[in-house]
C-alpha cells in the first residue's frame, strides 16, 4: 500500500491545512498522553504503597491483649501476658510454622557510643524475628542461636543507627551502651523500610536477665512456609484456641489476643490497587474516546471541506476507492503520529518524575504499561480510520455533479 504519490498528496494537504491538522493531532496527543500519565501515576502509587510491605510475606504477628469478657471466673480487663512457656508450646504443637520468635520492646533506650548518643528503638528477639522482618545483612552477622543460648550481650544495629552513632567508623566489634550496659555490635542490617533501620536487636534471653521480666516475651511472630491466606488463618485460629484454654479467655473475645497476617494484608492491598488500576484504565479509555470523537469530528469537516475537490478528482477519473484511501491514509497517518507523540511525551514525563522525585512511601517508580499504551495507540488509529472511513465513503459515492456544485 506504500505509494509515494499518495504520500505526497497527503503531505501537501497537511501543509495546506496546518492548523486543522495540528488540532486533530492535539486531541489524539492529549488522549494518549493522559492515558499514559494516569497509568503511570496508578502504577507509581501501587508500587510505592506495596513497597512498604517490607516484611516477609508469610509472616504472622500475634500477641496478648486485654480481655473484654468475663470467662471461667476471671474478670474482664485482664491482660494476657505471654511467656517463654507459650512459645515452647507453639514450637511443640505447630510443626507447620517456622521462625517462632519473641519480640519485646525495651524501654528507656538511650544508646551511646563514645560521645555520640541517640534515642533508638531496642527490641529483644529470637533469631526467627530477623526472618519475619526480612532483614538484609549489610555487615558482620545477624543474631544466632548461640547468642540466645549463652545470653550474650551482643546487638545488631540498623544502617541509619550506624550512621548516627559511628559516622564513617566500622562498628563491628565496637561496644555501645544501652541503658548503661555494654553490648558488642556483631552486625549491621538494612531494611527496605527506612524507619526500621534506626533500631537495634538484642537476644531475648539476655534481655530477660536485665531489662524485662524473666519470662516475658512481649508478642511473637512466626512464618508460615508456603501456606495460603486461608491456611494461615486456620493456623492462627488453632493457636488462639490453644492459648484460650491455657490463659482462660473466651474464644469469642476478640480483644484477648490480636493477630496480623502479612499475606492477607498484602493481598488486600493488591486488590485495592487492582481496583484503582481498573478505575484508571476506565478513565484513560474515556479520555481516548474523547480524542477519538475529536478525530471523528475533524475528519467529517475534512471530508465536507474537500467535497468539491473530490468532485474534481472524480471528473478527472478518480475511482471511489482511491478517494477513500486518500482520506483514510491521511487520518491514519495523523492519528498514528500524534498517538506516538502522546505516548512519547507521557513516557518522558513519567521518566523525569521518576528521576527527579525521590521515592516516597506513597509513590515510587511511576511507569507505564507499554503494552497498554501501544494498544491505545493502535485503538486510536483504528478509530481515526473508522471516523474517516464513513464520511470518506459517503463523499466517494455521491455523484460528481453534486460534489462539483458544492461551494
Amino acid at each position, binding site marked *: 500500500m506504500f505509494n509515494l*504519490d499518495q504520500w505526497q498528496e497527503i503531505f*501537501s494537504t497537511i501543509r495546506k491545512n496546518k492548523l486543522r491538522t495540528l488540532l486533530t493531532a492535539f486531541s489524539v496527543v492529549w488522549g494518549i498522553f493522559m492515558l499514559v500519565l494516569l497509568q503511570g501515576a496508578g502504577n507509581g502509587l501501587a508500587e510505592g504503597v506495596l513497597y512498604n510491605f517490607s516484611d516477609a510475606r508469610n509472616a504472622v504477628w500475634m500477641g496478648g491483649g486485654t480481655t473484654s469478657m468475663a470467662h471461667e471466673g476471671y474478670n474482664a480487663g485482664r491482660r494476657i501476658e505471654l511467656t517463654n512457656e507459650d512459645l515452647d508450646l507453639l514450637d511443640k504443637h505447630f510443626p507447620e510454622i517456622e521462625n517462632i520468635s519473641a519480640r519485646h520492646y525495651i524501654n528507656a533506650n538511650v544508646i551511646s557510643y563514645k560521645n555520640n548518643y541517640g534515642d533508638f528503638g531496642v527490641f529483644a528477639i529470637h533469631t526467627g524475628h530477623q526472618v519475619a522482618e526480612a532483614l538484609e545483612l549489610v555487615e558482620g552477622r545477624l543474631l544466632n542461636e548461640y547468642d540466645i543460648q549463652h545470653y550474650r550481650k551482643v546487638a545488631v544495629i540498623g544502617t541509619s543507627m550506624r550512621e548516627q552513632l559511628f559516622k564513617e567508623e566500622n562498628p563491628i566489634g565496637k561496644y555501645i551502651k544501652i541503658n548503661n550496659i555494654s553490648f558488642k555490635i556483631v552486625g549491621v542490617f538494612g531494611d527496605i523500610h527506612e524507619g526500621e533501620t534506626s533500631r537495634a536487636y538484642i537476644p531475648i534471653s539476655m534481655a530477660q536477665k536485665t531489662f524485662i521480666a524473666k519470662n516475658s516475651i512481649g508478642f511473637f511472630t512466626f512464618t508460615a512456609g508456603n501456606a495460603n491466606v486461608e491456611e494461615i488463618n486456620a493456623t492462627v485460629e488453632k493457636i488462639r484456641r490453644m492459648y484460650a484454654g491455657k490463659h482462660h479467655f473466651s474464644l469469642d473475645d476478640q480483644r484477648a489476643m490480636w493477630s496480623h497476617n502479612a499475606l492477607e494484608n498484602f493481598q488486600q492491598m493488591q486488590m485495592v490497587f487492582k481496583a484503582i488500576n481498573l478505575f484508571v484504565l476506565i478513565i484513560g479509555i474515556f479520555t481516548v474516546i474523547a480524542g477519538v470523537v475529536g478525530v471523528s469530528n475533524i475528519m467529517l469537516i475534512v471530508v465536507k471541506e474537500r467535497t468539491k475537490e473530490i468532485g474534481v478528482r*472524480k*471528473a*478527472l*477519473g478518480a*475511482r*471511489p476507492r482511491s478517494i477513500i484511501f486518500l482520506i483514510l491514509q491521511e487520518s491514519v497517518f495523523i492519528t498514528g503520529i500524534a498517538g506516538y507523540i502522546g505516548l512519547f511525551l507521557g513516557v518522558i514525563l513519567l521518566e523525569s518524575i521518576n528521576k527527579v522525585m525521590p521515592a516516597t512511601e506513597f509513590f515510587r517508580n511511576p511507569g507505564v504499561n507499554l503494552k497498554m499504551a501501544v494498544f491505545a495507540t493502535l485503538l486510536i488509529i483504528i478509530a481515526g480510520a473508522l471516523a474517516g472511513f464513513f464520511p470518506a465513503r459517503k463523499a466517494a459515492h455521491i*455523484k460528481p455533479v453534486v460534489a462539483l456544485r458544492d461551494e
Partner: protein
Amino acid sequence: MIALNNLHKSYFNGSNQLHVLKGIDLEIQDGELVSIMGSSGSGKSTLLNILGILDNYDEGNYYLADKLIKDLNETKAAWYRNQMIGFVFQSFNLISFKNAVENVALPLYYQGVPRKKRNRIALEFLDEMGLKDWADHLPNELSGGQKQRVAIARSLITNPNVILADEPTGALDSQTSYEVMDIFKKVNEKGITVIIVTHEKDISERTDRIIHLADGLIDKEYRPKKTMDYV
C-alpha cells in the same frame, strides 16, 4: 461519435418533479466543434453533465464512441471519464494546493502513470499552452486566462475523444475569452471533438455548429457565418 436518442432527465426536489430534458435527439460526429446555447434553465448544463457521465439520465440512450453509457457504476464511470473525456469548467476547478504541472498531471495519476513520466508529459502540454515558465506556480498565482489554459492542458493530457467545456469563458474578459477559443480551435484541428456550453453569442459563433436548447428540447440548430470576420 456521440449519439443521444430521446434523452430524458428529471430532478426531484421533495415531491416536486422538474423535467429538465424532455427528449433530446442529437448526433455529434468525431472532430466537430460544437456549442450548446440556451437561456438559463434550458437544460444545457444538465445535458453537458450527462455527456460527461457526471450525472445519469432517466430515459433514452447515450452512446459515446459506439458504447452505450447507461447505469454505470462509479468505478466504471470514472474509467470512461478518465479515458475518453476531458473537462473544462467555468471556475477552472484546479486543485489549489497543487502547482500547475501537478494539476495537469493529475488525470495520468489516476491512470497509474509514474510521477516523473506524467510530470514530464504535463510539462509538454503546459509548454504548448505557453505556460512552461509557470509550471511551478500554484493556481492562485495565475491569472484567470492562465488558469483556464492550465485546465485545458489538464483536459488534453489523456488524449481524450471529446472535450466538454462548461462556460469556459464565463469567468474571463473578452480578450482572454477569444484567446481561449483560439486554443479550443487548435485542439479541434487535431481531430478532438469539442463541445462548449455557453450563453455568449460571440463565443458560440466561433464554433462550427450551434445547438440551441429551450425548455429541455433542441429548438434550433445552425451553422454560424465565418468566424474570422470578427477578429
